Each structure stands twice: as C-alpha cells, then as structure tokens.
C-alpha cells in the first residue's frame, strides 16, 4: 500500500511539473506578428501580399476589369453561364462586391488589403533594418495600395462628391490603423464621400513623396511608383471634380514618367494592341504581375480575363463580346478597333467580337493586368482642362493621344460635343479595362444600355452597390445604400 501511495504521489508531482511544458506546441509554418514584423524585410513580405491581393479575380484579376464594362454599355454577354448576366441587365443586386468577396472567412474583401497597408504604415518606422530605400518604398507602397482600395470602394459604394443623389453622401468605413486584435475591430459608421476622398488624397501625397520612380514599361511598374501614385491622384481629383488639381497631377505624372505633351512616350499606333501582349505593357504606369503558380489548375479556363473575353485559347469560355454599340462608335481608322476581332459564337447569331487585349499571351490564359496606363493621363488632363474651361488645352491632349492611335487631329469641336468626344476617347481607349461605368457615373450620366435594354437613370438605386446584409445586421452603425 505504501508503495502504491508513493508511486501515486511521485507520479502526480511529475505530472504537475511537466504540465505547462508538455502543452507548449508551436505552429511550425506560421510566425507571430512580433517575429514576422520585427524587420523591414518582413514588411516587404506583407507588401508583396498586398500586390497578390490586387490580382484576385474578385478585384483587378477579373471583376474590376469586366463588371464596369457590363454594367454600362460596352459588353454584350453572348453565352449564359450565369456570369455577368445580372450585371448586363442591371438586375437588382447585380453589382460589384468589394466588401466581403472571397470564401476565406478570416481574410476577405478589399479591407484585408487595407489592413495590410495599415500594419505597414503603423509599424515600419520602428522596424529594424538598414535598407532605408526599401523601408521608404514599402511604406510608400502601403499608402498607394490603401489609396487604390479606398478609391475603388468609394466609387463602387458611394457617389462622387458633388454628384450625390438625394443628398446621399455616405461612402465607406475608414480605418487607418491596423487591426491586430479584437478590440481594434470596433463597429464603425460609414464616412462621407469627402472624408474618404480626403484620406485618399493624403495617402497619395505621402506615397508621391517617398515612392521611387519607375521607367515606363520597365519591370519596376510591377510595384507602385511615384508616377503611378501621381496618376492615381490625378484620377481621384478628376472624380472629385477638382479639375485644376487633376490637371496639375496629370502633368506631374507625365513629367515623372517621361511623357511629352505631344504624346511622345506612348506606344505608336501599330503597337497599341500588341502592347497588351507585351509584359509589362509599354504604357503601364502600374501593372500587376501574374504567374502560373498563382492559379489553381482550372483558374485559367474558369476565371481568367482571357478565357471570358477571347477565343484565342482553345477551350476558353468566350462569354463576353464588345457590344455592337461600342464597335460602331469607333472612328474610321482608329487602331483601337483592332482590340476586337470579329468572331462567331455557337448559340449567338449576331456579330460577336473577341478581345485582342486579353489573349493570354503568357500561355494558358495567363497574362498581367495593367491597372494604370500612360494614355489615361492625357485623357484625365483633357477632361480636367475642358471642365476648367480650357477647351484648346483639352483638344491638344486629345490630339496627342489620337496621334498615337492613327487618328487625325480633331477639327473644331467645343462644348458638349467636345465633352462627348472626351468620353468617347475614354470609352474606346479603355474598352475592357474597367472604366466605362465609372466614367458615366462620376459625370452623373444615365446608362443608355445596349441591346435595347431599358435605360438605367443616374438617379436609380442600382447605380450604387449594396452592402452585404450580414455586415448591416452585425453593425447597427452601418447604413445600407438607399433602395436595398
């Protein structure tokens, strides 16, 4: 009996002392924030993650490029696979979802990238490391990416300042500090559109101050650069209606990128289409690189821009065509029409057009996505100048671009005709690059749909996307957009 008791006591004592150690288990393939982000190179890894998110199919990998074309009047759906059929007819709730896309619960939507940026901005100054250039670059990239995401969120979920319908000025929730624990994930209300635009402006000014330059069309455009930040800020000012600033920033970006007022620096007319099959695109100010390993086996055929919009690769889906409306709008001799090839599609008897911009030129549907192209600077400046009353300057910018698109200089055009011309140049220049819906929206224009579909008035609730119901139900401070 004594022995037994002794054994039990010794055993119990051994057990008690061993407890805490035995249960220490380390996650071998993960780090803690403290160890991951104690130096600049850790933050650089996080910056790379932000870029990885940009190529997500729910963002610039597909949705942000295609949906704005379909929601407007540029794209015809030529096969009913269920995709974009709602967007084509502006069905209730068929819009762009940047709020909570992706099935990964812990890490979804545009705000995941914003949080990456917030972590970098908050902590990189204190991180160890001697590579100050990298520190500045990563920090500038965080400001740039945060601005890009907030800008996209703002234009999907809210009206542009000055273009509010019924005074509705709610934009999105602003967060500029990192969420690294439960208590910082408080329930916030939507900020106003002006507040969000001010944040974007501030971020881009920061980014412009510290980002390195990148030669147009060099591999450096795969990361954010000074010219990219200037170009994005020019676009933001244009959306905001601050035309003088838009003009100024467009000019600054052109200077940084080495673009001349006469269009020198843009690709020549014969290279407009082939530029999209060159990586990086020689006109890219900012382009996201994609490699085969970023995709699952079936992502190419299932989700790529190329599979959806082109018949270039056998087995592709080819469910999108240019609308007849778009094709007919091209001027005689415009090389940009070559961005489309007449094709056929079983089950669709009308003329259909396959995209030559998205041909999957890296093989197996693979290609990069240019997000900011140099030609936009001319169009931003032209529109800003027009809106500021400088019609001659506007025409000069349009002509600079037209000279690179095999088009003659414009004759005498002014007033609304000139404005229409500017919008037209944008429409054909950026066909299938995700601009059209936003160009109409920010100017308060109705969507005159292709295919005899009913007009979607600018005042219609469907111009703004709905916030996910689960977010509304969780957070009583969060207001749904009107009409949903």
């Amino acid at each position, binding site marked *: 009996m004594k022995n037994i008791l002794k054994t039990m006591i010794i055993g119990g004592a051994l057990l008690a002392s061993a407890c805490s150690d035995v249960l220490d288990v380390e996650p071998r393939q993960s780090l803690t924030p403290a160890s991951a982000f104690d130096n600049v190179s850790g933050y650089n890894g996080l910056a790379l993650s932000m870029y990885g998110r940009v190529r997500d199919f729910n963002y610039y990998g597909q949705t942000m490029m295609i949906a704005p074309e379909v929601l407007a009047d540029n794209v015809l759906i030529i096969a009913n696979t269920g995709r974009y059929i709602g967007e084509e007819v502006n069905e209730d709730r068929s819009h762009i979802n940047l709020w909570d896309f992706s099935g990964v619960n812990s890490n979804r939507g545009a705000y995941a990238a914003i949080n990456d940026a917030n972590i970098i901005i908050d902590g990189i100054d204190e991180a160890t490391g001697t590579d100050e250039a990298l520190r500045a670059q990563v920090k500038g990239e965080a400001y740039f990416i945060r601005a890009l995401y907030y800008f996209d969120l703002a234009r999907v979920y809210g009206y542009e300042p000055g273009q509010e319908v019924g005074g509705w000025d709610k934009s999105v929730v602003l967060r500029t500090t990192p969420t690294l624990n439960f208590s910082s994930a408080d329930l916030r209300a939507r900020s106003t559109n002006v507040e969000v635009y001010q944040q974007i402006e501030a971020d881009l000014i920061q980014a412009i101050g510290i980002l390195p330059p990148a030669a147009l069309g060099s591999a450096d455009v795969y990361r954010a650069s000074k010219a990219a930040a200037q170009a994005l800020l020019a676009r933001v000012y244009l959306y905001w209606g601050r035309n003088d600033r838009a003009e100024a920033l467009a000019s600054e970006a052109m200077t940084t990128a080495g673009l001349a007022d006469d269009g020198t620096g843009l690709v020549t007319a014969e290279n407009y289409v082939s530029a999209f099959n060159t990586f990086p695109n020689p006109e890219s100010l900012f382009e996201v690189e994609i490699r085969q390993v970023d995709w699952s086996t079936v992502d190419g055929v299932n989700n790529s821009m190329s599979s959806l919009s082109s018949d270039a690769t056998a*087995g592709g889906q080819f469910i999108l065509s240019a609308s007849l409306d778009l094709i007919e709008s091209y001027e005689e001799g415009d090389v940009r029409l070559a961005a489309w090839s007449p094709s056929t599609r079983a089950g669709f008897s009308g003329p259909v057009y396959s995209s030559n911009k998205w041909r999957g030129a890296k093989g197996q549907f693979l290609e990069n996505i240019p997000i900011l192209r140099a030609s936009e600077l001319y169009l931003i400046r032209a529109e800003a100048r027009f809106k500021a009353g400088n019609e001659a300057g506007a025409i000069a910018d349009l002509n600079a671009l037209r000279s690179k698109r095999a088009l003659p200089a414009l004759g005498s055009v002014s007033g609304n005709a000139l404005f229409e011309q500017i919008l037209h140049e944008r429409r054909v220049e950026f066909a299938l690059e995700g601009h059209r819906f936003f160009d109409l929206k920010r100017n308060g224009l109705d969507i005159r749909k292709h295919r005899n579909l009913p007009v979607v008035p600018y005042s219609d609730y469907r111009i703004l996307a709905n916030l996910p119901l689960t977010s509304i139900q969780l957070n009583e401070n969060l207001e749904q957009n009107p009409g949903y």
Partner: protein
Amino acid sequence: MRKVLLLGVMLLCANAIAFAQSRVITGTVVSTEDNQPVPGVTVLVKGTTIGTATDLDGNYSINVPAGSNVLSFSFIGLSTQEINIGNRTTIDVAMDPDVRSLSEFVITSYGDQSKREITGAISSVKGEVFQDLPMQSFDRAMQGRIAGVQVASSTGQPGGALTVRIRGVGSVNAGNDPLYIIDGVQVPAGNLAGNASQNALAGINPNDIESIEVLKDAAAGAIYGAQAANGVVLITTKRGTRGTTKVRLSVQEGVVKPLGLYEVMSSSQLAGLKRDAFINAGRNPGDAATVFGNPEDPNLINNSWVDATFGDDRLSVYDLSVSGGDEKTTFFLSGSYTDQGSQVIKSDYQRGTARLNLTHRPNQKLTINTSVSLAYQESNGAIDRGNFINSPFQAGFTARPNIPIYNEDGTFRDYPSDHLFGYNIVQGAEQELRLARTVQTVSNLQLNYQFTPWLSFTSFAGLDFSDIKDENNRPSTIAAFRGAGGNSTNVDRRNTNFNTNHNFNFNKKFNNVHTVSGIVGFEFKSEARELTSAQGQGFANPILRYLNNAATPLSVGSSFTEYKRLGIFGQAKYDYDDRYTADFTLRRDGHSRFGSEVRFGTFGAASVGWRLSSESFLEDVTWLDNLRVRASYGITGNSLIPDFASATLVGSTGQYLGSPALRVTQLGNDLLTWEEAETFNIGLDGTFFNGRIITTVDFWRKNSTALLFDTPLPVDSGFGEITRNAGEVRNQGIDFDLQTVNIIAGKFQWSTGFNITLLENELMSLFDGQDRIGNALIVGKPLSPYVLTPYAGVNPANGRPMYLDENNEYTYTIRDDDPRYLGSALPTSYGGLSNSFRYGALSLEVFFQYQYGNLAFNADIYNLGGTGSGPNNQFVNQLEYWKQPGDLVSHPMPYESGARPGGSNYVSQSTRQLSDGSYIRLKQVTLNFAVPPTLSQRIGIAQANVFVQGLNLATITKFNGIDPEANSVGTSSFATFPNSQQISAGINLNF
C-alpha cells in the same frame, strides 16, 4: 506484497490441514452454450481459501474438508454457480453464459465497468445486430438503433464519412463529433482523404466489433471529460475465449443501385422550353435552336447523360475470423475484404482489414491485452457536394441531351465550351483519376496488474496512425486540360494520434453490502497531422501521370499541425446493496489549443441511482425484474477547433515577383479556453415480465456554454471573424427505448425494438448582446435556421415569379428585409423501429429509421428548376410553365437568363428550394435461414446461415430532392452524393 505472501502461506496451510479429514470431489465443467469443456474455471470450497482450476479438458479434482459442503465455480463470461455437494463425489457442472457477460461490461482503457453499476445515460448496440451488414463503418450501425443518437450518411460514397450527433447540436463552430474510443484508442472522426470521402472509422471492420456503447450524459462521459461534451462512443472489439478454436467465415455478394434519380428532360422537351425562353426574353429563337436543337426536328439527338453516368454496381464482402485460447492466452484473429461499387461511374471502394486481439495472463496478477489492426482502403471518388461542373451529380443531370457523349469512332466528344466549361462529364468521370489510398492502424497495448483482489493498476497506450495518399490526374484527353498537357496533383497525409493513460482501479465490498470502487489516473494525448503536396503539368502522353513525367512542376506544399492534451482524473463510486448507487467524477485537463494562462479546465459529474426492484417492498412483485431511477449532473468539455485557433498567425501566402508573401492569416485570442457542456439527466430503467419488456427513458437537458465561437468582426476591420468563448446553446429532450418480445408461440417469435428521441434546440445567446448573425444564427431559434423569402407562385397575368415581401405583399424583387425565419435543418425527432420475426430456422428482420421536423434546402433546384432560364437541362416537371394570361401554374414564363432589368432573378434563393426534410426509410430487411445443425454437421460445419438482405429499400418523404438523408447535413446542398440501395445475399459458416 506482504499480503500475497501471506495468502500463499495460508493456501499451503489449508492444504496441509486438508490431508487429515477430507474427501475428494471430481468432475467436469462444460459450457451450456456449446457443450464444450471449459478449462481454467476456478473451483473454490465456499468459506475457505481452498481452490483449484479445471484442466484443458474441463476436469477438476478438489479436496473438500469436513464441514464444508458447497463448491463455487466461477469463470469470466460465465455465471458463477454454487453447488451443494451432498453425498456426491462426482459433480459435473454446466455453466451458463453470464447475464453480465462481455456486452454488459463497458470495457474502457481505464478498466472495466459493469453496466449495471453505471448511473449515467448509456446505450449500446451489440455487434450481432449489424453482423454481416454491408456497411463499411460501424457508425452507420448506430443509425436508428440508439435513442439520442442521430446518424446521417452525408455521402453515398462507399466507405464515406458520416455525421453523428449525440443529443443534438451544441456547438456552433467547434466540432460536434462525439469522441470515439476504439478499444481505448481515441480516434478522431471525419474524412481522411481528399479525392474521396474516406471515413476515419472505416479502418475497423464492423464484423470485428463486439459492441458499441454510447455515453450520452455527463455522468457517463465525465471520465473522458476533456472531450466528452458531444458524447462518447466506445467500441469494443471481439476477443477470444478459452476453449476450442472457433472459425467463422462469411461471404456476401450483391448489387448497389441508385436510390432514385432526378427526371430530366429529353432533348426535344428542352429545346421547346428554351425556344420559348428566348422568345420571351426578346432573344433570337434561332439561337436557342443552334444550341439546344429544333424541338420539331425528328432526328434531334437525344442522349441520356443520366443513364451514362449512373447505374448498378457490385458489392462483395468476405470475412474470416478465428478465435480461441487456453487458460493463459486467448486470441481473436480476423481478416476481411470488401469491394463495393457505387451508383455512379468511377466511384468505388476496396478495403482489406486484419486484426489480432490477444490476451495473455502469465500469472494470476498480470494481464496483457493487445489489439492490433491494420486496414488498407482504396477509393475512387466522385466529386461530391458543391456546384462543380466536373461532379457527376451536377453535370450528369445538367448536361444537354442533344449533345452526343461519344464521337462516331467511340472516343469521347468534346462538350461545347459554352456550358459546363466544355467538360464532358462522362469522359471526365471515366478518365480523371481521383484515387485515395489509406493505410491505417488502430492498435493498443494494455497492461493490468492486480495488486490485490481490490486494487489494480492499468497502463495503456494506443495509436491511431494513418497514411493517406491522394492522387489526382487530369489527362490531356479531356479538353479542359489539353492546353496544359494534363495535370497531376499528389497529396500525402500522415496522421499520428497517440493516447496513453495510467491509472489505479479499486473495488472493494464491505460487510457484503457496501461496495466502493473508483479510478485515479492520468492521461496524455497528442495528435499530429502532416501533409506534403506537389503538382505538375505537361505530360507527353495521357497515360503518364507521375510527377517525374511532368514537363512543368507547378507547385509544392507541405504543412504540419499538432496538439497535445494532458489530464488527471478520478472517479469514486459507492453502491449499497445493489440498491443505492452514487458516482462522482472529477477531471482536470489542459489543451495546447488554448491560451497559455487558460489552458486547464475542470470537468466533473455526480450521479445517483436507486434500484427500486431490490427493495423489500417490491420483492413480491414477480413481473418486475428490474426498476431503477437515475439522476445525474455534470460538466464536460469541447476543444474541437483548429490547433492554433488562439494565436495570431502570420503565414506565407503565395508569391509576388518570385518572392514569398506574408500576411496575417488569423487574429488570435489569448483568452480562448474550453467550451463546456452542462448536462442534466433523469432516467428510468425497467425490465418486466421476465425480460419480455425492457425499457429505458431519459429526460435530459444540455447547456453548451462559452462556445468556441467564430464571432464575426466587421469585415471592414480586415478580418471576418475571431474565435471567442461566447454564446450559449440549449438542447433538451427525451430519449425513449423499448424492447419487447411480443409473441412466443411454439417456433414463432416476434420481437420489436423501438426508440425515439424528441429534442429541442435553441440558441440562447450570442455575443456582445447581438441577437443574430446575419441570417445564419438567430437568438431564440434553433441552430441551422432557414431564413428565406416565400415564393408566391406565378402571376397569372404575366407569368412572372412573385415573392412575398416583409409585409406579405406580392413583389418581384426580394429586398434585404423580406426573408423570414421558417424553420431549421435540425430534426425535432428521430429514431428507429425494428421488428424481428422468427419461425424455427427462418428469421426476418425489418428495420425502419426516421427523422422528423426538419426543413431541407435543395440547391439543385437552382440548376434544374429554373424553367429554362439557364443553359442546363431541367426537371421534367418544369414543362408545366406559364404560357398565356390566366394560366394558373407553378412554374413561371420561361425567360432566358432569368435576369430581368431591376427585378430579382427567378433562381434567387426563396422557399422554392425549401421542403420538408422529414423521412421514414426502410433501412434494412434481412431474411436469414439457419441450416439445421444436424445437416451442417455432416459436412463438419457447426453452424451455417444463408441470408439475403437489402439496405435503403424504400423511403417516404416530402423532400424535393433525391436523398433527404444525405441532404440533412453538410454545408452545401448542391449535387450531394445520394445514398444507394444495396441488395445482397450471403452465407456464414461457423466451424
């Protein structure tokens, strides 16, 4: 030790004394079961320490001193007999099997426990109930057999994983699987493989199982407190018995058939529907004809993709076991082979199992037990669940009937690229390799040392090890993979799951009425899961599929995760004269998954029982065999969350520009600790009329608190959720079980087993005062609620589908506030009914299983019930659609794409996809003929049976899909793999 010596001296002394004035009694002991001699029976002279044991032939010889007149014969598994010697010198004894024999004992890694003493709620199924049923895993055997246990076969994949819920669903995000303990080895349930569902419990041959016990309340489960919140299932495999070697052989062959398939349209029906849909949507009807054909064309190809995808298949089960032993060693050795096809092409299952269970008693004190099992499983899996175009359960029904499957030369034809991503499903299912191969062992070693008759020590170590290899090859012959030159992915998984415990057991009776027993010990458990994967593409020839043939290596991956758990436990029981029992259990466990300061949790239970039938005032009630009331209360734990759920993690997430990317993959919570289940149980056990009626009823309530809850965060924080201890779920119900022998008339006997569970589930609270999480969880309602907008039928004026808005007005557009709570996916009642009829050598068992009160959502209606809005083939019933104003029909005007400017799409989520998920299923019918022994013994066979049986023979349900059982669980109701019907015939022979 001193006592042992003393005992030896006493025995010697006793013998010495015996020489003087004794008589010698001899005899033979046989078993009434098989009339065979029993070696090793202890023969004692009552009231003395004089004893002996029977030899190999069952013979004994003993000196009985004068004054002693009673001999006691005892042997484990047989009922002890005391016999008056009288004047006899030869006493032959026939011993009966003990009523409290093996199945009445709950054998655990901690030691044995008599079921009669247990005051918790416990139910069991004996192995003979499911012997020779062609079910690959034992969890299937519990279905409908045990009150309080809901078993749903969520996939028809042979060998696939099941969903088992004991007394409702208590946890929202942590696991709800019970703790499975196979001969003491704690085995996690679920699916092992990637390419096919492979049940982690299918490594055990069900025919090896002696019994399954289910511990339902805290009192029964508290000794396993760390992980007993969802109930405990104890599996005891067969062990050998002393005596002649027994051989059992069983052979079974049969067919597997689809349970019922969707009826979809012929090509001309679909073409007609699509033409109308195009016209109604203002599209060119010629385009419909190009794709779907001209409905008037008499030569229109009409293919049945359903017939090409689904059909009958074979099943074979072979099983052999040998058992026996002598006084020191007993063994059970078995082997089995199963080969089962399924109702869909290229989905099958093969398994070989081997088992050796050994018990060795080198001396009176030491017992060594070991169970060694090895199983090899090989599955070809069809893609199961989810709206995937390469799933036969999706594309087999949705593929257009006007498209030929084959070219004229017999090769597979490419499917048009505008539908199903150009995937020919028959080709895909035939040619894509989705192979899963698993080697698994669930083995253990137990040492038991009996210090004194009342104190023993047990050391136990158990291992569940599995190695799983998943091979997926997508050959270039399939159009979708042609561009890449084919693609192969290999995944290797290795799971090592170890538990060990060391404990003292004591059991002592005082003054003949007070029995005190108990356990004190500690336990350690660890589980590690490793994974390595690699992918490559570009194969010179579609026959080549190994990665060294791949031109382009695509990706590699590996991962490792583990947890550890440590606990101490103690249990004390007191029994007074078999009338009053009380039982206390306490356990303290630490788990590596939780925050370092809050790792340890304390669990425990107390229970009392009163056996009224042992009281003197009921002694005269002859029809009452046993009557006992029980009450228990206890707290058990749950830790079924990912291994590092409490930590903030930074993980690598792919690459950019060739450099690795890092991101915060999870927000941690240092305060994360155990989820607890608090259980109350009041039970009644009764046996009446000499065992003709046996009943158990339990009233229970289980409050699950401090749930391990993935509480949502505002998505704008950058994270969707964080795991916290929050919320409370209450389950309460009644388990009722009744076994009756209805008729015994000559050779005819009819007996019935019936059980029902009535239960109620309610989410009592969430977190931070929230009253709902979206439409997924609502306080005051059961878990798994359905919150949908009612479909209001077709507007007879214009044929448009209508819904009811929040004010119950008709609307075309569903708004945020229109969906409402309609019911839950959790049943309010379930159970089973079995009837056995026996006439002489012939017996028939008819078994029904049912569940009631749940709604079921069928996502297949999105694809197949869109009245021609999409590119898919449609249910035949969709032909009754609106054609002209005034038509009162249930299906709207066909409208290409279903997307109308401004409105809601016809295929929006509404009650159109919802139906009553209740069902009654004729689960099993077995007709058995026992060949008369006089006949079989002529060819040397002790006993032979011939049987035919059917599984899933008929179902009564209002469910709008194929299989309400497979639908009733799981995250997606798209393209579920329905259960199949199985009809087989076989023989079993006992030598």
